[in-house]
């Protein structure tokens, strides 16, 4: 009997001590972490949306943690302890089958896009493997007053009637749009949610310029000197930042996102309109006589001058467009003008 007490009791005691030191005490200490500057609790609707997010296991594919690693820069600044003050249950996640959502509200502020994407992700991102959450929507004959029907592409729209978001979808989108990193105090006055500049490697132009620009192997490999269009890189950046709305074929989605194909601004010899839109974003834009309600996010904080020049040159030379190419210097000049 003595030996049993020793083994069972002794090992349980050792374990309980370790559980206290490694589980409970850090839990107590870290639970007291104060909210960072600008970190606000959710509104009731956003909190409801967070419950929908939890109930449907979104965080098995989407993390909400930005690591201090180069590959995470596209998702925002590194997460800080104060970011998680109001986040119970925690949703950091352990897998990134889909992109990190820490900054989803900044990257994709369009409610319309969020609805289309939730209804069926493949309607806007053909390669997506995210489940369709169409059961959060209702199909009605006519949208009730004050509610805009979701402008689905024909292939995904129901045969009859129109699709309107249900309450769960509204709450979930309200939550997704609330996902914005507040700027850290020492990160300068630059807008909210400012990831370190450049999604890939904007400053290595000088180093790679010496090597032959003809080696167009990997997209990230060669960045030619300022002014020379790197269409491969431009295409990759377009895919990462623009194609979700404007689509890979540049045609956008009718009624939801404007086409860049044959677009006057894109083909304008003076690039300032296009550059301004990319740098500062757009709201209520009128393109080809149609007013688009979806806002376009500003990219001044996330993309470097070289990146933007590459994107613009890609847009200006694709899908039958032939706008004059721009240089990074022109982007810098437009950036200097501000809003």
């Amino acid at each position, binding site marked *: 009997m003595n030996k049993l007490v020793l083994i069972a009791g002794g090992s349980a005691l050792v374990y309980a001590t370790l559980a206290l030191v490694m589980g409970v005490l850090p839990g107590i200490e870290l639970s007291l972490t104060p909210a960072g500057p600008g970190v606000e609790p959710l509104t009731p609707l956003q909190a409801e949306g967070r419950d929908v997010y939890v109930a449907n*296991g979104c965080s098995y594919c989407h993390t909400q943690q930005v690591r201090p690693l180069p590959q995470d820069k596209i998702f925002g600044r590194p997460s800080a302890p104060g970011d998680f003050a109001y986040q119970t249950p925690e949703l950091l996640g352990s897998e990134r089958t889909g992109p990190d959502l820490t900054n989803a509200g900044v990257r994709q502020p369009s409610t319309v896009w969020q609805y289309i994407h939730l209804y069926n992700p493949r309607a806007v991102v053909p390669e997506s493997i995210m489940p369709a959450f169409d059961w959060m929507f209702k199909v009605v004959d006519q949208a009730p007053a004050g509610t805009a029907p979701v402008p689905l592409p024909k292939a995904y729209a129901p045969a009859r009637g129109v699709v309107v978001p249900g309450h769960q979808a509204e709450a979930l989108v309200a939550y997704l749009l609330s996902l914005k990193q507040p700027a850290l105090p020492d990160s300068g006055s630059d807008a909210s949610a400012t990831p370190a500049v450049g999604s890939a490697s904007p400053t290595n132009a000088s180093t790679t310029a010496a090597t032959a620009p003809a080696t167009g192997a990997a997209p990230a490999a060669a960045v030619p000197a300022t002014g020379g269009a790197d269409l491969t890189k431009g295409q990759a950046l377009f895919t*990462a930042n623009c194609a979700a709305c404007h689509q890979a074929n540049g045609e956008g989605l009718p009624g939801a996102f404007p086409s860049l194909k044959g677009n006057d601004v894109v083909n304008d010899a003076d690039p300032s309109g296009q550059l301004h839109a990319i740098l500062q974003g757009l709201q209520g834009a009128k393109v080809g006589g149609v007013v688009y309600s979806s806002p376009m996010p500003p990219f001044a904080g996330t993309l470097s001058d070289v990146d933007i020049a590459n994107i613009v040159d890609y847009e200006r030379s694709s899908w039958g467009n032939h706008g004059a190419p721009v240089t990074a210097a022109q982007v810098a000049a437009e950036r200097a003008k501000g809003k």
Partner: protein
Amino acid sequence: MPSEASVVQTSMEGHHSSESEDSSRVLTSVFVAYTAASTLWLLFATAVGVVLAYKFGAPDFAPGEWLTFGRLRPIHTNATFYGWASLALIGLGYYVAARSCGTPLYSAKLAWIALVLFNVAVVAGTVALDLGYSDGSLEYREWPWPIRLIFLAGLVVTAMNLIGTVARRDTEDIYLSNWYIIGGVLWASTFSLVAVLPWYQYGLGQVSVSGFYMHNAVGMWFTPLTLGMLYYALPKTLSRPIYSYALGVFAFWTNLVFYPIIGAHHFLFTPLPWWLQTTAIVFSVAMLVPVWGGSTNFLLTMRGRLRDLAHSYPLMFILVGVIGYVVGSTQGTFEAFRSLQEVWHLTNFTVGHSHLTMYGFVNFAIWGGVYALLPLATGKFPGRLGMSLHFWMAVVGSFIYVISLSIGGTIQGLDWMHGAPFIQSVVDIQSYWVWRGVGGVLMFLSHIVFAWNVGRMCFGPSAEAAPLATVPAEGAAA
């Protein structure tokens, strides 16, 4: 001296008085019931797993609220953990504890009560998750907390029963298996309690508790019960004592001291305190000591008996389990390094790793234990063809599974590091997900065969038909 002790312990079972006939029958029925229930959960959990794997290639397959990926995914993991592996290991644990101590079960009634509690918890947890009631996507503790309390109650009852059983033994010594089994049940009760109390689980505090819990649920529950079972099943099947009893004791204490500290390695590069992350990495390396110590002990116990191995499916399963233990755990140590986490963390590589450990180690060891011990309890044997089909489909299937996700996950990680558009990482891994599905289907089919074999061991024709070669130790031990 220690290895002699083990011989004494195993030979204890020889003393079968007529009064123990009854208790033996009770023990058998408990063992059978736990094994049968766990097998049903294995079929359910892995059927869900196959559906999930299919959805990676066909996201619009099985649409709708109740079959959506994010709800089925925790149903798969929780049913695997708590329905299948936990119940199977507890059934084996009861048998090993009673047999190695030469005593009847302390209380059959408690065993039945716990079985009901466990099953109620898994059913309720599954239904709750499917209806969207989740305590958060907190790996392996998604069930709403009242349901987790039911499971915890089952664990406490089980701990009492096992301790009571071992307390009844006549000898002074306690055979090593019981250290691991009793330890595991007590530790699991402890961390389940830590996981369910809310007061220190807000925001980042909950993140640190998640790291603690998700790793302890594996290494302070499945690992000790599996090792405890192996320390009995392996000597029993080979009719020779464990190579070094002392090494087993050493591995027991080092595992106990090192393992609880490493949980935070699931949250490297997060805002968790840097010291917590670094401590976790250091002790992840220290884990090589109990892992290699334990697995070397098993392998040396099998030394020189390769011929028997080739003729005994229980031993083949155990051998794969031991290899899964050493390879999976060592891989875990390497994954904990910051440099390698940069590539592999958050990718599908981790999913491959978790299947290498839970499947390659725990599942194979359980199957070896069930094939070795259940026939001793029931006197009924599975057919060689059945075991062979189960073994080869499970080995080949899990091999394909782990290799494909390891490669695919690495590609994902490299895509991110090269700054490719995110969607590129989804496109690039597609074909590896197909292979994962192929492996998963083979694994699932092998479970159907296992269920058939369990049926034969529980309810099939009696012993005489059994080929002796399947369990070489049987004659010597009885």
